[in-house]
């Protein structure tokens, strides 16, 4: 991977972190509010089903996580196990795609 690509990956992690900072604040506030009366499907789905605002919010959240987490794991793996190179980079991309798909499935699940 070129130095430019490595730098852009770093930037992508920081940019997604900035998005996540906002998303996580909303998420934490929602959770603290939502667990008050116990978690139930009716309550969660009542909030999210057909609601485009929540759908947009969670879609953005999932995509930011799908960018952020794999880049972080790539660094942790490289530093902890000394494993670097193309295979690790490919695995990073694969993890990101998997998280995005898996996460969007969940977002769709509570939307439709």
């Amino acid at each position: 991977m070129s130095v430019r690509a490595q730098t852009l990956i770093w930037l992508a992690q920081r940019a997604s972190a900035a998005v996540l900072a906002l998303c996580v604040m909303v998420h934490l506030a929602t959770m603290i509010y939502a667990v008050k009366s116990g978690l139930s499907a009716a309550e969660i789905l009542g909030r999210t089903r057909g609601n485009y605002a929540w759908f947009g919010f969670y879609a953005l959240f999932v995509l930011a996580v799908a960018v952020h987490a794999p880049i972080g794991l790539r660094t942790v793996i490289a530093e902890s196990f000394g494993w670097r190179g193309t295979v690790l980079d490919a695995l990073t991309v694969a993890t990101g795609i998997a998280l995005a798909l898996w996460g969007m499935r969940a977002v769709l699940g509570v939307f439709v």
Partner: protein
Amino acid sequence: MSNEKPAATGAGSGASRAALNVRVWRGAGEGSFQTYEVPRQESQTVLDVVTHIQRVIDPSLSYRFACRVGVCGSCAMNVNGKARWTCRTHVEKVAADGNLEIAPLSNLPVIKDLVTDMKEFFDKWARARGRFAGARTRDDDFARVMPDSPQRRNVDAGIECIGCGACYSACDVVQSNPAYLGPAALNRAWTLHNDVRDVMRVERLASVAGDAGCHACHTHTSCSERCPKQISPTLGIAGLKRAAAVAALSGEI
């Protein structure tokens, strides 16, 4: 910044006042600590202790020093686990209880005893393009650099580096990512990046960016904690991260 307070210096604090119990690393990669008893003196530095051992107790002890006044940067060692310039580290400050453990710097190959091979450390300065490149000749006028300009202030903050290697020794990223250029080389690159006369800005940013460069820094700030000149390489590295990211976005690097 280290903020250990000097120990009480009052008389009569017991036997530890008379002698120091000093454990010194002997050997190369394979080796062990050996214990020496060194008489305690007033205003004694850790380098004084090492010198006493070599001159009075065991002449086979190898260590490195030159100026003894904190200028040359050759006497840094791990003292009780922390990298320090030994010539300006008072025993009173780091070994109030009379116990000293002296080891070679971390993250560098040990040649023998307290002497490390600094080759990789300085090679990384070269790799970070830690060398000034100007475009003026003797026929040109002097460059005018305002002392209070932001760039000049950035240079001031990092320029006093003596190349002792304490930051490099304390850096956990160097340990887990051996290609990482390290705090000293990046601090040097940052001072040159801010030198308005320098003409290698883009090449230097390309050299210090990415996984082996500034973007690998995790802001542990161990380098800033350990720098005997109170430089914060962390700050300069953050500046390089931003500058290189902008250069990567604009396609300069």
